[in-house]
């Protein structure tokens, strides 16, 4: 496989993803709009939130929201559909290897997640003066590990789901508890200690505080990074092992 082939494939897969309005709405527009809503609801510092404002608290939650939609919901559905409809098998008869299609889809999803996260950060900064991350390196490490953990989980769902329907169902069912533990309904700062402990061991519950800490200049807790790394590693190893091409 050469670069021209992969670029053409990437462009095609990007076009296909941009033709999914539901995906763009939930994965990109919704987190940005919700950031605005939280910004309007509260940009004052609040003791109950550990001295942060509501929008401060929700910026990382909105960032992982986009990751969750695209990695846990979109990726498994896309890949399982390709398998179910014989798209992967069809590609395996050409000089291109079907692995390239998976690579292209992960790249496109990563790109879309990056755009959504950037929009959230920019809107929060411009409209509500949420400070930009001051520990940039730690911020990038936290984002990359979070993205890796979520994409690996998405790949794992695509590997074990026997049909596109099942992949969508599993993705959706996982998405809501994961977002709960990320603090979408109750901010992490206001969760009881049991919930918080559980949350620490969920992928998004580790991602949100890791990102939050870097916004205020500190390096993310090693425990959070470790949880994310374990998810990324275990899920991707299982996905590689269990993935079926047909």
């Amino acid at each position, binding site marked *: 496989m050469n670069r021209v082939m992969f670029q053409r494939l990437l462009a095609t897969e990007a076009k296909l993803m941009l033709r999914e309005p539901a995906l763009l709405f939930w994965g990109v527009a919704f987190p940005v709009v919700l950031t605005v809503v939280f910004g309007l609801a509260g940009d004052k510092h609040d003791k109950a939130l550990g001295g942060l404002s509501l929008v401060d608290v929700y910026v990382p939650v909105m960032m992982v929201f986009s990751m969750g939609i695209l990695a846990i919901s979109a990726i498994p559905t896309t890949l399982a559909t390709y398998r179910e*409809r014989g798209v992967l098998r*069809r590609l395996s008869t050409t000089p291109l290897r079907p692995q390239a299609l998976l690579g292209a889809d992960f790249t496109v999803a990563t790109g879309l997640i990056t755009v959504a996260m950037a929009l959230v950060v920019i809107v929060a900064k411009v409209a509500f003066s949420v400070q930009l991350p001051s520990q940039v390196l730690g911020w990038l490490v936290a984002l990359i590990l979070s993205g890796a953990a979520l994409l690996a989980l998405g790949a794992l769902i695509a590997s074990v789901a026997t049909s596109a329907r099942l992949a969508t169902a599993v993705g959706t069912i996982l998405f809501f508890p994961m977002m709960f533990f990320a603090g979408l309904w109750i901010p992490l700062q206001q969760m009881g200690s049991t919930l918080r402990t559980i949350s620490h061991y969920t992928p998004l519950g580790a991602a949100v505080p890791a990102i939050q800490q870097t916004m205020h200049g500190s390096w993310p807790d090693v425990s959070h990074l470790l949880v994310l790394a374990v998810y990324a590693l275990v899920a991707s190893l299982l996905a590689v092992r269990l993935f079926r091409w047909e």
Partner: protein
Amino acid sequence: MPIIEVESLHKRYGDTVAVDDVSFNIEDGEIFGIIGPNGAGKTTTVECIAGLREPDRGSITVAGLNPRRDRDQLRQILGMQLQESELAEKLKVGEALDLYASFYERPAEISQLVGALGLEDKLSTRYGKLSGGQKQRLSIALALIGRPRIAVLDELTTGLDPQARRDTWALIDEIRCQGVTIVLVTHFMEEAERLCDRVAMINSGRVVSVGAPAALASAAGVLQTMRFHPSRPFDAVVLDELSEVNTITRHGSTVEITGTGDLLGAVVAVLSQAGVAVEQLRFEQRSLEDAFVSLIGEAHHE
């Protein structure tokens, strides 16, 4: 010189033997049919030829290549149309063609290909909006877009209406004229008879018979029947000498003769020597389908 050689192919899935012992050669430039009932092992055989599956035993050579080991080289010269494989619903026809063209070293001219397949009006139509026949034609276009030396077409016309089927057959004839070797998997005997130079009849994972469709039909001891009005009464004794003739029956003024080989030629020659003209002739030759039923039937009774 054969372009594809299959030797003692064996493939099982778990406890199910899909292909038991299949051997045949396919010559360069021919249309070779693989026929047999559903579940006979046709698709598995071609999937092994295309390198999509690893045979458990036996050897396959395609244009001098080993389909598993020389995967990348094989992909450049072998185009394949698969049964039941689709494209992304929202992918446009033109985008699919551009994408697949980019996979090959010297792709076909897209405008020429879509012209030949009658898809020129559909380039900006999404795959999901195409009719069954249009999807099938696109699938053929994608199999041919790399200018393959060999095209493997699996259940090419299944689900097409009669007109679309005939159009597809005409297209296959055209492709062959460009020197492409075609491997056609089908369970339509009419299709095999109409298109194939030779066919391999497969049943329960084994080759029952290989040869030209007509040869298979006659090898199966296939009967021919001719019915005619003689221009004047004649004595049936004149036909007794002919080895081709099996039975002679008269129904009023009609004579019905059954037999094998060049029945028609022999009978007409003898009668014309006797001064009898053959009028209102109707001739029936049992087809590949009959041969198929009798060959496969025998295999079932073994």
